[in-house]
């Protein structure tokens, strides 16, 4: 699926929730699910320091696609990371670079991506895009 299609699918899923509590319960479920990153990458040099919750990111190229894994020590942050990974991972670097994150607003989680929110997610997205830029440069 393209990034666009995945985003639409997620927006669709979230439209079934009636209130914030259901949305958060779903994200917490996502957050509790399996580790999103291999233990060996949960190290200092993979860490993105948000003020409060820690976020780890790892990227590698598989064929012509970039594969992201990430994690956080806060469950809600991790739930959002799971959504972002679903959108951005296994995509061509150029598509990652071009992708917007407006769908986050549509699913009612905008406040988590505010640049002043101390959860590390904004830096994480920046980092995902930077990885994509680097891989794209290798391809060119």
């Amino acid at each position, binding site marked *: 699926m393209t990034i666009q299609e995945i985003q639409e699918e997620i927006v669709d899923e979230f439209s079934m929730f009636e209130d914030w509590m259901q949305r958060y319960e779903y994200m917490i479920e996502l957050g509790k699910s399996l580790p999103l990153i291999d233990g060996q990458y949960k190290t200092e040099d993979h860490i993105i320091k948000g*003020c409060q919750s820690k976020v780890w990111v790892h990227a590698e190229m598989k064929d012509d696609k970039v594969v992201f894994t990430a994690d956080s020590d806060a*469950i809600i942050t991790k739930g959002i990371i799971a959504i972002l990974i679903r959108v951005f991972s296994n995509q061509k670097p150029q598509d990652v670079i071009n992708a917007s994150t407006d769908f986050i607003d549509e699913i009612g989680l905008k406040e988590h991506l505010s640049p002043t929110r101390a959860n590390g997610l904004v830096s994480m997205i920046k980092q995902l895009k930077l990885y994509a830029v680097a891989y794209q440069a290798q391809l060119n």
Partner: protein
Amino acid sequence: MTNKNTIAAKLDVDVIRKDFPILKRKVNGQSLVYLDNAATSQTPQQVIDAIVDYYQNYNANIHRGVHSLSQEATDAYETAREKIRAHFNIGKRHEVIFTSGTTHAINLVASGFTHFLKEGDEILVSALEHHSNIVPWQMLCERTGAKLRVIPMTMNGELKMEEYHRLLSERTKLVFCNHVSNALGTINPIEGIIGAAHKVGAAVLIDGAQAAAHIKSDLQKLDVDFYTVSAHKMCGPTGVGILYGKEKWLNKLPPYQGGGEMIAEVTFEKTTYANLPHKFEAGTPNICGGIAFGAALDYMNTIGFEAISEYEDALVDYATEQLLAIDGLKIYGTAKHKTSVVSFNIEDIHPYDIGTILDKMGIAVRTGHHCAQPIMDFYQIPGTVRASFSFYNTMEEVDKLVEAVKKAKSMLL
């Protein structure tokens, strides 16, 4: 359990709440429950009015104009200084230095002490400090070769006084400690700290940022050398506060910043500095902020600090009791003497997650390390959820907090 009625007799919280327009706000569709008072307090209409009055009626630069507005503004600003002096029972009006807040005040002193310290000297700081307040002393040590030593704390969040006495020596030149810890609410035994430091000839700076909203301190009686306050934690505006310093110290300290207001005569060869307090008040100050700080003190004194602290004690006792009834909830900071702060975690749930859910329910708390990383390291936790109560909070709000924490726990565990 606390008898809510006897408390209500001294302080009518329903009347008080009408003074705070922001308390009518909705957040995420819910009535705001503001429990982040240790970060900044809310502002009563009386203080908002003072701010509006200043800009509507007599906004002018101070201490320099011949015109009436400037005179009015100067008078109001100096009246505020006098109110602050009287409130803290400071000996002389010029011992009150207006600053942008506690951080500025601490840096002013740390910068000045560069001239008094040499290698081998020691500065003692408590383990309970706001970490941004440790940095000025680290920088001072780098400049002078002095050594920073830490007064350790117990698991309860109290300073180990016997260790403090052991650390004190003729090498100790300065002791820095907060009056009340922002992360845990511990009220430190500053009388003992000051007295013992003076016996070895050390100066003492007490950070009163957290204390001033709850405790009316008599600074002459305390015999403290320096004391700092931020207005925004006691119903005043942000960006203004004071440094109190004993006259003998303020005369000894060199000016911190150069600029207008702080000079007597300037030629390109030499400048002579103005008298206190102007020597430390370079540039146009936060005039409106200073005046509004005075209004905030008037407001709090009208309610009365005794009634305030008694009421807040009742709030925090009730909150502590109710929160502890939640399985798996642990409170950090259980000092015998503490202000209306409850810092807690539930099992290994990340404080950020709890704070996020509480926010959704309209409850404002602080989560994280509260700028007190060393304390969090001591407990080996990433942070805590901190609810801090003020005299305008209610028992019903405590109930809402407790319900919301239970809800968050059930969602997150």
